[in-house]
């Protein structure tokens, strides 16, 4: 999407920034991956498609890019992450040029394969929010990632340049698919069986934590020795402890980009926990992460009428 406009802008940008962090096509079908564009000749490699799922903001925190002036491609959720990082003083605004990408949602290869069986990239042609497969054009809605189906900010709230045209609809209203709501409706015993079965499979490879730009602690509580919270053994209870702990650390920070869920090699729907916490924060503390830089984050403030009836 928006390739030509993106390339023209990138050539101009390379005069004022040292690197452009973007996506390029991957070495496997249906995969695109993070890419550091340095020289004008490499600009042609920059792409943006329905499989550019990783959140590039985490590369802004790496040692060698932190001090340099860098441009970054940012979908709606990625741009919100930049706002959160600015608020938390991790990056300097003048070092970052944000190229906003109006995003129609990332497609889940798993859902595609479940529906169409094994696929080849050449059979697909992708448009903004529809795709053509064997002559039939259909909407991407049912095949979007869970988080993208309930997205509220397709257009980046923060940007220096905006490529392409804004998305006119709010995906959550349009697709009416909310995996979080569906889970809340079933009984708590069934929910426990679902989560117990999923957390049993987790192998604690920390792909979810390392893919999340907001998980930048020097020493994560999951690997700490002093104090010693949990062991590296990937048992159900330890995995539950880790994922619940991480979700709580995301309170008022998670931008619901779903990069953690996409990073999981075992396709465990772990984003449900941070999403639940984010939903609670939105409902009860009327706060949305990464939208307005000056609002006080929820856990740094309080109100008299905060929920209190659960306390005896």
């Amino acid at each position: 999407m928006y390739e030509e406009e993106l390339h023209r802008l990138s050539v101009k940008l390379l005069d004022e920034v040292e690197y452009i962090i973007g996506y390029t096509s991957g070495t496997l079908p249906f995969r695109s991956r993070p890419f550091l564009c340095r020289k004008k000749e490499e600009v042609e490699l920059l792409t943006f498609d329905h499989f550019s799922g990783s959140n590039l903001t985490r590369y802004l925190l790496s040692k060698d890019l932190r001090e340099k002036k860098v441009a970054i491609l940012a979908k709606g959720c990625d741009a919100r992450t930049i706002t959160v990082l600015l608020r938390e003083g991790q990056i300097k605004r003048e070092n970052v040029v944000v190229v906003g990408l109006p995003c129609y949602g990332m497609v889940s290869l798993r859902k595609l394969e479940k529906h169409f069986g094994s696929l080849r990239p050449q059979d697909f042609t992708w448009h903004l929010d529809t795709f053509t497969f064997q002559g039939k054009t259909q909407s991407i809605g049912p095949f979007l990632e869970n988080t993208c189906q309930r997205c509220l900010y397709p257009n980046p709230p923060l940007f220096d340049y905006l490529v392409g045209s804004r998305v006119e609809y709010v995906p959550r209203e349009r697709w009416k698919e909310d995996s979080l709501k569906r889970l809340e409706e079933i009984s708590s015993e069934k929910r426990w069986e679902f989560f117990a079965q999923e957390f049993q499979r987790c192998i604690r490879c920390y792909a979810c934590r390392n893919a999340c730009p907001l998980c930048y602690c020097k020493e994560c509580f999951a690997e700490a020795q002093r104090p010693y919270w949990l062991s590296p053994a990937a048992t159900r209870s330890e995995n539950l402890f880790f994922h619940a702990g991480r979700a709580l650390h995301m309170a008022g920070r998670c931008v619901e980009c779903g990069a953690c869920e996409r990073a999981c090699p075992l396709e465990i729907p772990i984003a449900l926990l941070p999403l639940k916490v984010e939903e609670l924060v939105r409902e009860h503390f009327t706060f949305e992460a990464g939208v307005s830089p000056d609002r006080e984050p929820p856990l740094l403030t309080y109100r008299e009428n905060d929920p209190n009836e659960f306390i005896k």
Partner: protein
Amino acid sequence: MRGLTMRVKMISQEQFRKRLAEKENHLAITEKAQDVHRQFLPPGIKVVKTPKEILFPSWKEMYRFFFKERSWEIQEVEEKAFSDPTFLLLLPCEARAVVEVLDTNFLREDYRDTDYARRRARLNLVILGCPAQHPTCFCHLVGGSPVWRDGKSAFVLPWKEQFYVENDEVLFGEGDPVNTQEKREIESWEKALQEKLPPPLSPDFPEKLYAHFEDPEWQDIAFRCINCGACTFLCPTCYCFDLTVDGKLRGSMLRTWDSCMFPKFTLHASSHNPRPTGKERVRQRVMHKFSYFPIREKRYGCVGCGICREICPVNWDIKEAVERMVKRIDSRCDIN
């Protein structure tokens, strides 16, 4: 490798499916083997992501300690009856990972890991040959082939609506003998398949790669890697583990999976870390499999199964990294 005493037989596809369905609760199959041979397999066989789930589980209590009557006691963990499967269906590359890498590390004569040895002796490998090379794998690059086998474990190859089976007494039951003409046909087909494969890495690649330790190329290769443990945990050849104590007055020493990608892997108590950034750690992963392990054990530490390429969150590709280093080496650029 194919001695005369090798028992070979042909069985029909129905017999293959029926026998597997019968022994279902003793069986497991790796996910990649299931993808390649899906159409021949009965449903309901336990799927494991990697052979390590059975041979080298992600966590295992090595021993227990507890404080009793004012002194400490240490106790081995008594082995409860194994519920793990006794047969594992896997692809030649994964079998090679078990036989040529995991066994080398855990069953070395000086210190045998008794837990691994017990599990390995109990498990019968059933190697399902690949009819053709899968697009994401590169077993040819590291000296493997789609029809590799170790001559001891059972080997099954789909052959013209039937299955050619080697070395199996228990699993598939009786089969009709293989006449010499058919045997020669199979062997020539295998030879043709292997000739068609692209050439492997040059024999002196490990030493040459070793000399390119300081090559600036590593910085670019390592840029996009987010240093998670996904590739190392699901790689059939990665055997690194951690020994941690859990529990204060009573607890256990746990052997769990560990990854050279994690910063704490080499962090000294003095907070010095010989591999402080992602570049050193990505370089260690590639150098271990394509230089250090081959220099020590005369075989590659990677079997080219391509699992790490498929599951990497940012599509970091070890084959691409090796090919870039090959280009650097061939371009004769001296770096020091």
